[in-house]
């Protein structure tokens, strides 16, 4: 039961980390390595705001401001850096890696390299089936499911959502229909940035961010995306669950599992890419350029 409950909650958190990146990857067909930095940036801005404005500053307002900053940064990165070289995949990866490292260094310069701590929105712990877990984890699980549901509604019920889906699945058709691919890619960046910011703000009390955290988050996101199928947003949910449950199983059932549990994600990436390069639930040709 411990493995299932804690694994599922961890898995939902992982899904939340990965889904925004999966969206950007699916639509724009690019590996945005800055993605995890939007996540850390949101948490850092919130912490700084709370510090500057004092403890009476409403936390929800700090979240809105921090989220807006992270989303604006995501949009700016895509508009001015990524989109101009979007079709050169390697260049995009190198560029976004450089941006992520610059952000890392700036955060170290400003805040030092130790983790920062955001207060949990839900304090205390809840027992579910005899397993006690921090209440904040349930909140994150709810938010993860909520975001998945909202994304599903948005992508299936709105015109922009339809355009994003068509761009992801049949980019030529969208181009032939006169769709503005760049604008659609920016919409995906906006959505991805929003999801990352929400993830950063709500996950920070559980996974305290630090300047180097982007790399860990990126590995988790890659593991989930690869497992769920490259370019397949919906695959993030089962993939996150599989990864979370596997990690917990390793942590508590294997001697010294606590040390090696984080290798599970990397192992999954290696195995899946070796035997099924498009991911477990992915489709052939997902990388076809938009």
């Amino acid at each position: 039961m411990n493995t299932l409950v804690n694994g599922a909650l961890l898995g939902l958190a992982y899904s939340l980390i990965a889904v925004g990146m999966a969206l950007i990857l699916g639509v724009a067909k690019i590996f945005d390595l800055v993605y995890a930095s939007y996540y850390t940036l949101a948490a850092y801005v919130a912490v700084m705001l709370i510090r500057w404005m004092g403890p009476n500053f409403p936390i929800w307002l700090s979240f809105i401001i921090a989220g807006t900053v992270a989303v604006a940064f995501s949009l700016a990165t895509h508009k001015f850096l990524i989109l101009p070289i979007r079709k050169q995949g390697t260049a995009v990866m190198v560029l976004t890696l450089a941006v992520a490292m610059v952000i890392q260094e700036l955060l170290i310069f400003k805040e030092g390299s130790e983790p920062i701590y955001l207060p949990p929105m839900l304090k205390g712990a809840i027992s579910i089936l005899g397993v006690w877990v921090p209440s904040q984890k349930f909140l994150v699980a709810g938010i993860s499911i909520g975001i998945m549901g909202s994304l599903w509604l948005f992508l299936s019920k709105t015109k922009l959502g339809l355009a994003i889906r068509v761009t992801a699945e049949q980019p030529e058709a969208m181009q032939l229909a006169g769709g503005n691919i760049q604008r659609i890619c920016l919409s995906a960046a906006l959505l991805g940035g929003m999801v990352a910011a929400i993830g950063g703000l709500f996950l920070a009390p559980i996974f305290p961010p630090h300047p180097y955290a982007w790399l860990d988050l990126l590995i988790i996101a890659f593991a989930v995306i690869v497992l769920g199928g490259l370019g397949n947003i919906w695959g993030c949910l089962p993939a996150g669950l599989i990864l979370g449950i596997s990690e917990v199983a390793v942590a508590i059932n294997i001697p010294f599992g606590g040390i090696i549990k984080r290798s599970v994600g990397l192992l999954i990436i290696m195995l899946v890419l070796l035997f099924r390069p498009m991911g477990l639930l992915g489709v052939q040709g997902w990388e076809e350029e938009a």
Partner: protein
Amino acid sequence: MIRSKNFFITLGVLAAFALCSIGFPDGIALALERNVIKIGVASGLKRPTGLASLQGAEMATKEINDAGGVLGAKIQLFTADTEQTAPKATEAIEKLYYTDKVDTIVGAYSSEEATAFQEQSAKLKINIIFHGTTSIMDKKYKADPEKYKYYWNYKCSDLHYLEHVMGHQLDLFVSAFKKQLGIDKVNIAIVTDVALWAETIHVGYQEGIKARPDCKLVYTGKIARDSVDFSAELTEMRTQGVQLILSAMGFAAGYNFVKQTYDVRLPAMISGINGVSWSTSEFLKAVGVDAAAYNSSLGQNSLPTTPHTAQLVKKYEQIYGGVSAEDVGSTYNGVKAYAKAVEIVRSLDHDKVQMALKKVRLPEREAWNCKEFWFDDTHRVHVSPVDGLILYTFQFTPNGDVNILIPTEYKKGDILIPGWMVNHWKKK
């Protein structure tokens, strides 16, 4: 007249020879070959521990320079960032040695850096006064004292820590649990991270607990230094009925562990060595007062346990505007010890200073958190509450104060087991 003039000249020459042979009294000491002593500070300067070690060196340097320097020579500090990794630590030493041409190197923090430093001291034949909790370094020194004679350790070893926890701290907790919970046997978990020093302690904890009839080892685990999520492990500990967690963690994982243990309200206290690397205020800020009151840490150098340390901590607060971290005291003592050694031999020659460092005795008024500071036969600081570096155990109280439990000389109160925890176990 001429006779008496010659007499006085002869007398003057003889007096000069006599002074040379017996040494000059303080204040008219012979000048060094240079008027600047260059000391390198190698540390993870982007981390709180690294900054703390730099600040400690700065404080000692300012005190020495304000008092006229070392035999008239002023100390000048140079820095290099080790990023707390062995490869970068090696680069940092080379930068300080070849580029800045320093006379000695002080710094902190990890055993991985320290082992790299130990090798560099042997290669470059320069005195390095540094951290290094792992007792592997002592073994290396004992195996080849000539090779490693330039390395000096102002931090106690993992074996000292182990002795303190198993010999003193654990008794305190087990007695409190038995008395306050009305039990005969305490359920113990051992959780450590994977630093070199923590590995030794993990094994030592296991052996120690197994040998005690009033303790039962019900859980052991190891965590990565940067682990953030312990929910599953804590659930296992709850299932096993853990009442006391013996920890050995030096990195952020330790903070997260304390915080999450409290978040899930695991009815178990955390003792051992945890969260001592940052300052007490940083620890409180990171984990919160309620969670901190769960955790009784073994500390060294960050709390004012001697009257002189209290003055230094106050002085630190005035200069840097915060509570001093452990590593402030280490480099403070390191710089002071080096300066004293130079005074003894009146030279900056590495070999002469190396010999003199063995003779250095810093009394309490010249050292941080020490009754007396000197290096023992393994080139490691002498640890003892009576006449050496003082190790202590403290607990945060629910109002954020610090309650010193060990050594008894500085004791402020008894162990507080949170009331809800006592109620939980009494119901069982």
